């Protein structure tokens, strides 16, 4: 591993080691560019992961205090847990389920395709599917996505069998075990899936792609990477010309250091990334870095989600095997006859008994609830993931008074459901219920959204500088050596799970950064 001096101003500093930051670090290092990768969380290994939901949550999740506001039910059920994302080397790629779907062509042109939707701050992405296709192909190969590159699909588990049977009875056509960044057979030094059933708790077999044991060690092997874990970035600093010049971070003992940099890439996920830019306000940039548009922190999206769980006369054991074991893709189309713009996916999901009790119907008690859990081993479940509308008022802001352990204002996450989101969720609940009733369900539960795992849009890409924070390469409109490298650059949410696109954008961004460095533009 490289060792780069605090005063060395020649390296690229990347903040966050998840899908965006971890991938970008490796791509740059492979090109011979020196990188310092700062990660707020600890450096765990696969051996540290535990198949036990609460202890794993304590080990991997981002638990620093956050507050919430708005009419979303998460604010009521989990007022200090707006998001279920991770603070650990590898970021949320330790926790993600592995679904790897390309965003559809029309979804990149949401404003053009959906037209004017009241109260939605829709714009088109400054890039197209065609621009991304070669990079999607690289990402799928890198991650080993099933049903691409000749990689077979995964075998479906019991939970998938139930969803498949119901979906087919309803007439759904595209129902299969998905495109998953989980090895169906050994590949690239990683094992095949053992159907362990704890994808969310860190994959013990390493079959699921995570930057923790793919991109980051590959980057280290080049000799160009210095990974600093337990290094929590507090502010991005700039010089008199307004270019970024380094970052101020706190180490595990709370001691603060200033690391100089040639380029800074922010990849802390869609709550921490805008928070960091806002916390970096200075006399030159009084509203925060890269915020001349006022869009930093705005347009927060979290996908229109919900779950449907159902109990059956006979056993299912849904938790055995991959957590996200299959998909119904028929509803991801654009079809406003359903009463909303955008589409959604239905993907199997299971929770262990401890989390099922916490999430099935937060706040509930009584016989009906207990009876559902009494039938836990007879239960099947799916998650709904659909496109939500960007709204300016849905945003990450700095708390007026509360500070974190380093003295920095904590973030507040405000979210109000758009009427399009509600119409989509209700449609999806109805369809999910019909799927399970077609398979013979006894009872069906419409489970409200969990704390957000897909956090998007708070530093979005835009063609015009006034509409967003960065251009199509994630380069901020205001500061040419400051980049956004995570899902916060998403212009719109699309229906698909975002990780594949985050990785794809990171690969493309690395090419752009290397080219711009070569031309001495940055």
């Amino acid at each position, binding site marked *: 591993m490289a060792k780069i001096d605090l005063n060395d101003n020649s390296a690229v500093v990347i903040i966050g080691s998840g899908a965006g930051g971890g991938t970008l670090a490796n791509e740059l290092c492979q090109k011979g560019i020196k990188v310092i990768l700062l990660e707020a969380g600890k450096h765990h290994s696969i051996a540290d992961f*535990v*198949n*036990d939901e*609460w202890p794993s949550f*304590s080990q991997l999740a981002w*638990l620093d*205090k956050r507050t919430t506001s708005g009419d979303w039910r998460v604010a009521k*059920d*989990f*007022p*200090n*847990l707006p998001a279920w994302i991770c603070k650990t080397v590898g970021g949320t790629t330790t926790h993600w389920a592995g679904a790897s779907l390309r965003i559809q062509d029309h979804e990149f042109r949401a404003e053009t395709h959906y037209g004017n939707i009241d109260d939605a701050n829709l714009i088109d992405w400054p890039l197209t599917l065609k621009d991304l296709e070669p990079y999607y192909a690289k990402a799928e190969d890198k991650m080993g996505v099933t049903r691409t590159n000749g990689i*077979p*699909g*995964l*075998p*479906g*588990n*019991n939970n*998938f*069998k139930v969803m*498949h*049977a119901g979906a087919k009875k309803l007439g759904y056509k595209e*129902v*299969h*075990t998905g495109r998953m960044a989980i090895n*169906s*057979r050994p590949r690239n030094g990683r094992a095949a*899936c*053992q*159907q*362990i*059933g*704890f994808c969310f708790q860190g994959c013990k*077999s390493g079959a699921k792609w995570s930057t923790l044991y793919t991109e980051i060690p590959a980057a280290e092997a080049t000799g160009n990477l210095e990974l600093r874990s337990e290094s929590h970035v507090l502010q991005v600093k700039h010089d008199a010309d307004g270019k970024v010049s380094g970052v101020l971070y706190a180490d595990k003992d709370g001691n603060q250091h200033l690391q100089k940099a040639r380029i800074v890439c922010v990849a802390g996920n869609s709550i921490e990334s805008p928070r960091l830019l806002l916390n970096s306000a200075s006399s030159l940039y009084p509203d925060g870095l890269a915020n001349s548009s006022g869009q930093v922190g705005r347009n927060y999206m979290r996908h229109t989600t919900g779950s449907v769980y159902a109990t059956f006369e*006979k*056993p299912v*054991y849904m*938790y*055995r*095997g991959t957590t996200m074991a*299959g998909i119904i893709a028929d509803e991801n189309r654009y079809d406003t006859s359903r009463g909303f713009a955008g589409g959604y996916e239905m993907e199997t999901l299971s929770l262990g*008994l*401890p989390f099922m*009790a*916490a*999430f099935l119907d*937060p*706040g509930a*008690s*009584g*016989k009906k*609830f*207990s009876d559902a*859990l*009494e039938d*836990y*081993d007879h239960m099947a479940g799916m998650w709904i993931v659909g496109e939500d509308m960007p709204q300016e008022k849905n945003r990450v802001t700095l708390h007026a008074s509360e500070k*974190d*352990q380093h003295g920095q204002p904590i973030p507040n996450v405000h979210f109000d459901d758009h009427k399009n989101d509600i119409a989509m969720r209700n449609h999806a609940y109805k369809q999910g219920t019909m799927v399970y009733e077609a398979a013979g369900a006894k009872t069906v539960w419409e489970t409200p959204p969990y704390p957000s795992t897909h956090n998007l849009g708070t530093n979005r890409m835009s063609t015009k500088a006034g509409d967003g924070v960065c251009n199509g390469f994630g380069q901020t409109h205001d500061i040419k050596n400051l980049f956004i490298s995570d899902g916060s650059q998403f212009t719109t949410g699309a229906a698909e799970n975002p990780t594949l696109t985050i990785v794809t954008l990171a690969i493309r961004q690395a090419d752009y950064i290397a080219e711009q460095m070569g031309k001495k533009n940055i």
Partner: protein
Amino acid sequence: MKNEHLNRREFLCNSGKSLAGIVVASSGAVTLIFPSTGWSAQLAMLNEHESKTLLNMTRQLFPHDKVEDKFYAVVVKALDSDAAASADTANKLKAGIANLDNLAQGNWNELSADKRGAILEKIDSTAFFQQVRSKCVTGIYNNKDLWDHFGYEGSSAEHGGYINRGFDDLDWLPNPPEADSPKAH
């Protein structure tokens, strides 16, 4: 990592509701700690009436007929520990229990199940109710000694996962075609 620890605790306290705490009971210890009679004598803060009230309340909130009292007693013990750690918590618990008796115009425990339930519904937005409810969520469903009862098998990696242990053993619905669900490699 003192700071981190404090922050985590603060998070858990502040997140309220169902994320309010990680449990208490270590696996296998339940029977040792809670023999069938006289367990309330081991409690630090709650008297016999209070512990009995909480025991009835936890069972009424999350009724599982075949789950023995000793498992509900684990939740009561955890609440007692919280009360021992915080005078404020102790006061709230004791006041909440006294309020149940007030609403019962006597001993809440001696009412019929329906009447007890009606009183619980009246107080279900109180901090007392939520404190007991959220402690049940972890105290009952995160108790490894009860997972077998619910058909949850827990940690699987050390057993090689379920690839050879029934991940696809459901036989009461048709198997999907191989194009949709390929065989394991």
